């Protein structure tokens, strides 16, 4: 156990810090959940890519820097320390990219990864359906083989980024009459293809970060299938592992929120209740614990280990931490918490963040599902009705 950064790691930190200081936009961007804000965020993605900072852990061949996970953590710390914007490219970075690296063909890697790293193609996920949320094996959307193409029919919902993004990925039933996990395939599709209709969904905060997707005989080349026909479930489970685990929520982001909360608490002085004050300390403790744990997992992975059901521990921890931190901020703000904008016109980011944090325990597999995974796969408890 050696918790000191190497001179190389320190030099890397200095390099990131310098680039961020020179390039991070001054002033907050409009929210990513609105079309104008989305365009601003895509412009930022391209700026990051121009500095070769889009996908730092990816191989250089695909526009990355080939960095290890400790360097990734350092990059993330400097990214959030600099107050850089949320990533429009999140689904690509954390979900699809790692999936293509693990399961894609060389041709698919060449075709999809580099444009992703450059911010030229922004991806939306199409996981859920009206009848298949946390129970993803209930997927009903179909893909029927027709020569070199699949013909897609059905509906996806709550698809993050899908209102504005360029391409999407999701599971479709390629074997007629198949049940549950069997007969599913993982497909990539152009969101502007004929037959796709996008209907933006207005979320709790009033903006349209989600969309419903309707597929009416959409033709998708077979070459857009990741892994084998009928192998989609295994691929999706790996993707979900990336989503729950290490990658989706970097600790630095929560440390940044905790630091803002500490500032808010200091600014409000003696009007902060003892309970809220304790919750502010708890925010720091939680964000630090999440960071240590992530460094620990990263160290293990660098040494050849894998992240398995432990990913569910992470998902529960960060989602509940994020909600608790924003709830605490709302309590400290008191009557001002209900304002969409403060008197000086500044967006009430704590309110926006609180509303967003409420989605954390739901998406990427609800926390109830995560607790089942922990109980059954980590603790070895029996499944109900099994015995």
């Amino acid at each position, binding site marked *: *156990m*050696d*918790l*000191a*950064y*190497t001179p190389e790691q320190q030099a890397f*930190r200095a390099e990131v810090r310098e680039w961020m200081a020179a390039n991070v936009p001054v002033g907050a961007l409009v929210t990513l959940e609105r079309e104008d804000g989305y365009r601003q965020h895509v412009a930022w993605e391209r700026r990051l890519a121009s500095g070769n900072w889009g996908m730092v852990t990816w191989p250089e061949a695909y526009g990355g820097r080939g960095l290890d996970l*400790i360097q990734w*953590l350092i990059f*993330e*710390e*400097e*990214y*959030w*320390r600099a107050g850089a914007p949320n990533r429009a490219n999140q689904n690509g970075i954390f979900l699809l990219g790692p999936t293509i690296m693990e399961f894609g063909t060389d041709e698919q890697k060449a075709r999809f990864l580099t444009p992703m790293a450059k911010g030229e193609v922004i991806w939306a996920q199409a996981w859920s359906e009206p009848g298949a949320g946390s129970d993803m094996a209930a997927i009903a959307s179909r893909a029927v083989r027709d020569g070199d193409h699949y013909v897609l029919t059905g509906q996806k919902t709550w698809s993050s980024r899908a209102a504005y993004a360029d391409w999407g990925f999701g599971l479709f039933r390629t074997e007629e009459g198949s049940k549950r996990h069997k007969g599913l395939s993982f497909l990539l599709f152009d969101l502007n293809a004929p037959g796709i209709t996008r209907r933006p969904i207005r979320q709790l905060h009033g903006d349209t970060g989600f969309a419903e997707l309707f597929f009416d005989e959409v033709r998708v080349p077979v070459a857009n299938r990741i892994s084998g026909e009928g192998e989609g479930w295994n691929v999706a489970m790996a993707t979900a592992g990336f989503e729950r685990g290490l990658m989706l929520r970097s*600790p*630095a982001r929560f*440390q*940044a929120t*905790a*630091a803002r909360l*500490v500032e808010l608490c*200091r600014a409000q002085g003696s009007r902060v209740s003892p309970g809220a*004050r*304790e919750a*502010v*300390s708890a925010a*720091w*403790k939680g964000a*630090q*614990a*999440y*960071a*240590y*744990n992530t*460094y*620990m997992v*990263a*160290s*293990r992975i660098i*040494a050849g280990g894998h992240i398995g059901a*432990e990913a569910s*521990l992470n998902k*529960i*921890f960060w989602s509940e931490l994020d909600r608790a931190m924003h709830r605490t901020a709302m309590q400290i703000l008191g009557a001002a918490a209900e304002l969409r904008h403060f008197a000086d016109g500044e967006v009430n980011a704590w309110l926006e963040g609180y509303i967003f944090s409420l989605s954390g325990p739901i998406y990427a597999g609800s926390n*109830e599902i995560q*607790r*089942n995974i*922990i*109980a*059954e796969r980590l*603790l*070895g*408890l*029996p*499944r*109900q*009705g*099994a*015995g």
Partner: protein
Amino acid sequence: MDFRLTEDQRALVDGVREFLSGTHGAEVLRALDGEPTRRSSAIAASLVEMGLPGLMVPADQGGLGLGTVEAVLIAIEAGRAGLSEPLIDGAFVAAPLLTNAGGQDALLAAIASGEARVALQHPANPWVADLDGATHVLSARAGGLLIGTAAAQHPADSVDPLRRLSKPVTVAGTPVAGSSDDLLNRAALMAAAQALGAADAMLALSVDYAGTRQQFGEPIGAFQAVKHHLASATVAIEFARPVLLRAACAVEHGEAHASVHVSHAKLAACDAAVAMAETAIQVHGAMGYTYEVDLHFWMKRAWAMAGAWGDRAFHLSRIDAAVIGGAIPVGPAETFA
């Protein structure tokens, strides 16, 4: 930067876990609970044979010369086993302090050989643990440290049947170099480690019980409500573990904010352990409310560790002062500040 245990550390943990599971176990704890002294000279001798009292004693004085991380790992195992003998305070707190103080070679050698046993006294504790049978007391009552002798007096009952308490005493002895804060931090770190080990043990007992106890025709562990209790406890335990190791490194290297990290570790581990105890008794149902199952030894150790070496209010106030007060830098690039 490598936040993993080394192979040597893992081997040490495995060896000690196996050894303690042989010398302890619930039947042994039950038998000791019936003894007036609660102690076993045979177990004490076996600890010496294993080299544990000398873990942190320098090799020149007959010890193993290992560091705070190793001591924390062994303290976790002590908590997991429900260790009955007073090992931790003398071997993992007093020994490194006496080593740093200098001039205590003979005493350190006696600690390593098991001839000397040092109890600890500090204003953070209203009671002194395991003073009976101790040959020395390291006392932090006068701001600095004092090593000497004293007799136990006015024993107090602990909820933990294997823990023996005495009122604070007047120590006759000589000052040694060192700070009372350092003593408190090391002892609080070890209390946190024991609490975490107890939590591990309670989780294992509860999972085992939930997997076998049948109700409504199924093991109760098949029910989602029971699963979710145990999963939540697992999250708390697993996120306390790296905090504890991070604090061990801070103490080992004398980092500027070591006391903040110790307080974090004490809160994380003891909060997890107390929550685990409540979960464990819920999972065990009425059986958990009795001496019939083994759970109670570990629940009681967790409660004892939660209050000892700075209670929750004390450690919360240290975090509050440092984090909100601004003594420690907070934010994304300050993970290891």
